[in-house]
């Protein structure tokens, strides 16, 4: 049951066995919980309900997290204590500095552009006849994997050498040729390639921004809009004085949420360039150092850095939420 299943019937059997085992555990918990009543019993029921969750989170998240932070102070083999040397490497090694620079590009550009596009689009299609269809088009990329998104865009960026009657098959290079330019190796030219990868993330995240912001726009009370309209404001004033202030707290949430997702982006880089040609980011470098370069210590330090970078964004998010609630 705990072996590797290799044929399809075996796989399905193993899945059913796992689900049965899980159902049995759940049944046991509920059975025991059912035997307790009264105030003292309440506590036991609560602890029983929480037991599996606490165990899983403890073993699967808390312990591994602490362990990784600890490992980040050890060398490549995870044996010798080397203090902050791994962090020193991240902030001094030329390759690692490129990784950091790229990560900054990603985290600064993606949230703002994706949110701006999402907001503009949400306003443009609001209350139009094709609203739900138009929104679905932009939102669809959100449902597919970063890997598939990477493949789709790699095809857009595809390059064919500029010789004889070789034709371009990538859309961007064909446009360049039509406009009289020479085709470019889009995914190899650095730092252009990093920005082209960022486009993919924007393509995915704009739908998220649009959906959340669209709901916020629809939540603006009608009487405010009506009053402004009676005052004769134009479209720009409406946006500047009514829409934007009303959705501002939501904009912050969307920005920070996309920022965090972007910080951890890995699949896009790995699928499209493998982190080569100066496109690596922290999340990708973590994987490369840990599994390809066998540098456990540096890998752990990069993972920890990722964790540390998330904290201020979350802190800002919670703080601005508090402020908007206090208002």
């Amino acid at each position: 049951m705990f072996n590797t299943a290799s044929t399809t019937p075996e796989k399905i059997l193993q899945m059913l066995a796992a689900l049965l085992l899980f159902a049995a555990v759940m049944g046991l918990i509920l059975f025991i919980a059912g035997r307790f009543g009264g105030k003292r019993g309440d506590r036991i029921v609560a602890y029983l309900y929480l037991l599996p969750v606490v165990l899983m989170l403890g073993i699967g998240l808390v312990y591994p997290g602490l362990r990784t932070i600890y490992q980040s102070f050890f060398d490549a083999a995870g044996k010798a204590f080397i203090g902050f040397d791994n962090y020193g490497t991240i902030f001094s090694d030329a390759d690692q500095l490129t990784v950091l620079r790229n990560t900054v590009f990603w985290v600064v550009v993606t949230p703002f552009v994706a949110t701006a596009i999402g907001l503009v689009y949400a306003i443009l299609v609001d209350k139009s006849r094709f609203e739900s269809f138009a929104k679905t088009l932009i939102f669809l990329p959100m449902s597919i994997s970063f890997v598939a998104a990477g493949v789709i865009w790699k095809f857009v960026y595809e390059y064919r050498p500029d010789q004889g009657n070789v034709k371009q098959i990538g859309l961007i290079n064909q446009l360049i040729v039509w406009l009289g330019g020479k085709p470019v190796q889009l995914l190899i030219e650095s730092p252009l390639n990093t920005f082209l990868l960022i486009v993919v993330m924007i393509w995915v995240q704009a739908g998220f921004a649009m959906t959340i912001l669209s709901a916020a726009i629809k939540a603006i009370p009608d009487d405010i809009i009506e009053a402004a309209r009676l005052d004769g404001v134009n479209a720009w004033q409406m946006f500047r004085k009514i829409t934007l202030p009303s959705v501002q707290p939501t904009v912050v949430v969307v920005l920070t949420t996309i920022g965090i997702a972007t910080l951890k982006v890995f699949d896009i880089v790995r699928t499209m360039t493998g982190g080569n040609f100066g496109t690596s980011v922290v999340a990708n470098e973590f994987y490369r150092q840990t599994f390809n370069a066998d540098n456990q210590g540096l890998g752990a330090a990069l993972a920890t850095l990722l964790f540390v970078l998330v904290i201020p964004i979350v802190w800002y998010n919670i703080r601005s939420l508090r402020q908007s609630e206090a208002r």
Partner: protein
Amino acid sequence: MSTTTPVTTTPPLVAEKPSAAKVAKKRLSSPWASLAAIVLAVLWTLPTFGLLVSSFRPERAIKTTGWWTFFSNPTLTMDNYKGVFGGDGGVNLANFFINSLIICIPSVLIPLSLAALAAYAFAWINFPGKNILFLMVFALQIVPLQVTLIPLLEIYVNIKITGTFWTLWLSHATFALPLAIYLLHNFMREIPAGLIEAARVDGAGHVSIFFKVMLPLLTPALAAFGIFQFLWVWNDLLVALVFAGGGDEVAPITLQLANLSGTRGTAWQLLSAGAFVSIIVPVTVFLLLQRFFVRGLLAGSVKG
């Protein structure tokens, strides 16, 4: 991750029907707005459309001419799809497709049930240490998966379940819990306390309250999170790479597609068809259950 998003899930339903004059005025004043919206929509759709068209073109045509030439010189073929499903090209997507399903089902059901129980305890039972425990679970949402992978892998090696579906089921289930508990807790808190008290007065215990009162009311929330988690697991690459990277037996479809893109990056006849086979399930789920998915998004966040 984000906390309570300050937006309502349902737009106000009472928006009065705008008068014909108003509509006309709006139409006249916003041809540019419509144009901008159309341009954006086309830009967003074109990349996918190009690859979709390519997946039905013959290999030679894909590699020598742009997909836009298809419209002046249409030739259709299913060979690419046969190629990715057939075993002879070494792609064998059918196998990975099944793996993805096998990974997804328990990875959705297990955290959903566990989180529902835990959320109930947090929402409706008083016990010492409740607030601090809930805060800790809430805070765990921000832990990036990356910091957990290596120690988890060591644990799996020690208990000898590497290279099995168990590693993926356990990992995905664990990673989903903080967000799931937080979301379901919020939904449960909105259920009127009177309902639960009435049930208690009638002598119902926490088990029967959970099943008879909570669960029926919770269906939309469970559906929202279920879809969310399904898409997340189906689209995951990182967890699969780390725990199932070794063998084809348990690797999901995203992993095979990523490998294909790495090792045969110019085999566009396989990549295009492969990409569409891999997105057909999430896109279908998404289109059918969009409303629930949006609700999940609005109430919650993006994890990972």
